[in-house]
């Protein structure tokens, strides 16, 4: 706390004294053209900002080997993990793109600007304008963009066309897709911004795809039951007669062992196709078969289901239950 306070007060006193006295730092004085030129060091793609001077590939070779090659490699291949300056042509759209001056950079002017501004790494802005021209020319030569006779100066440097320039373009997409409204606009207070954070997928996400998908997503079982066949046990509610209600208990004790799973050819309870032909014979015949036993084409019905302790009425009730369950 004390430290930050003191720093602020020192800064404040500097500002005050500068404004009043135009003190040693010159704060408050108007910048001269010379001062502005010292800061105005950027170079544009069209060559604006390039100074007078020139450099050759041959001169650049010696400078490059002395000042650049220890990191960037003798041929621009990059020592260790320092930046690679050459090669990589045609790799931009592959799994491992190599972005180098030759394969990626859109403008040669960036070379001059960057080298002049920030290189060599250990002594930035130590190169003269001519040295910068020479090194830039040599790096272009390493990338086969210029030949070894190339002399770089204000005019020739701006004319250099980089191989990847065409892949850079101005993004002309608008900031917002909607048209701007000036007249009779809706009241912003009435706008309702709705977000859908409802599980992972927004509700109704599939509605435009197909009805089945929408039903499926919302957990509506009707789509599934429509495709069910008559072989499947119906889930619809059955209203039983009094005898059938009495028979349900008997069925659970004596009959379901075979008739719920279909063991020994027994028609499954609820299996409509299996029961249709049997129900057509009439309840009397079914009752007789159930009480006395019956040998059919599909299998054997033992008398009273093999449980002789059941009364005839018990058996009749159970038959009624099964028939009504399977209609």
């Amino acid at each position: 706390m004390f430290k930050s306070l003191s720093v602020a007060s020192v800064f404040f006193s500097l500002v005050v004294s500068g404004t009043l006295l135009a003190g040693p730092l010159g704060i408050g004085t108007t910048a001269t053209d010379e001062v502005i030129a010292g800061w105005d060091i950027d170079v544009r793609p069209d060559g604006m900002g390039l100074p007078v001077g020139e450099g050759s590939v041959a001169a650049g070779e010696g400078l490059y080997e002395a000042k650049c090659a220890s990191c960037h490699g003798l041929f621009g291949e990059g020592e260790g993990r320092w930046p690679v300056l050459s090669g990589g042509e045609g790799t931009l759209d592959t799994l491992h793109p190599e972005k180098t001056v030759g394969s990626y950079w859109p403008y040669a002017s960036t070379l001059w600007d960057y080298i002049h501004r920030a290189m060599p790494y250990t002594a930035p802005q130590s190169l003269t304008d001519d040295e910068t021209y020479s090194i830039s020319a040599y790096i272009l030569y390493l990338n086969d963009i210029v030949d070894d006779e190339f002399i770089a100066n204000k005019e020739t440097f701006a004319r250099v066309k980089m191989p990847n320039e065409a892949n850079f373009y101005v993004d002309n997409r608008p900031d917002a897709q909607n048209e701007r409204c000036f007249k009779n606009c809706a009241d912003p207070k009435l706008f309702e911004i709705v977000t859908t954070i409802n599980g992972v997928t927004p509700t109704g996400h599939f509605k435009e795809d197909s009805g089945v998908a929408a039903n499926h997503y919302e957990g509506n079982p009707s789509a599934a039951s429509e495709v069910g066949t008559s072989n499947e046990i119906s889930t619809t509610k059955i209203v039983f007669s009094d005898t059938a209600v009495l028979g349900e208990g008997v069925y659970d004790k004596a009959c379901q062992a075979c008739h719920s799973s279909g063991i020994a050819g027994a028609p499954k309870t609820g299996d409509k196709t299996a029961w249709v032909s049997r129900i057509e014979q009439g309840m009397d015949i079914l009752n007789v078969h159930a009480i006395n036993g019956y040998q059919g084409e599909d299998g054997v019905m033992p008398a009273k289901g093999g449980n002789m302790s059941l009364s005839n009425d018990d058996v009749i009730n159970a038959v009624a239950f099964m028939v009504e369950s399977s209609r």
Partner: protein
Amino acid sequence: MTSIRIKAKERNGSVDVKTLMKHSMETGLRKGKDGKKIPEHWITDVTAESGGKVVFQAAFNTTISKDPYLAFKFDGKKGDSVKISWKDSQGKTDAAETKVK
């Protein structure tokens, strides 16, 4: 424009040669975006001559990386010529020559 860059420097009667050959060095095992194998294309032989005499020879194979970088020494002096040539698996060749500095 040649695919070979050479730097040769003499010191104490020994010439230090460094060279970089731009070559795809495709092994023939890599698959392209279409899922088909990229045909093999790699340098098989590299020869360096100085004054008509072979001073260095190498038999490359598919384990050599793309754009091979090679450095070697031989006994020579300033002003000697150094000629480096390669031949690849598709029968193509290239050569470049420089003077020892």
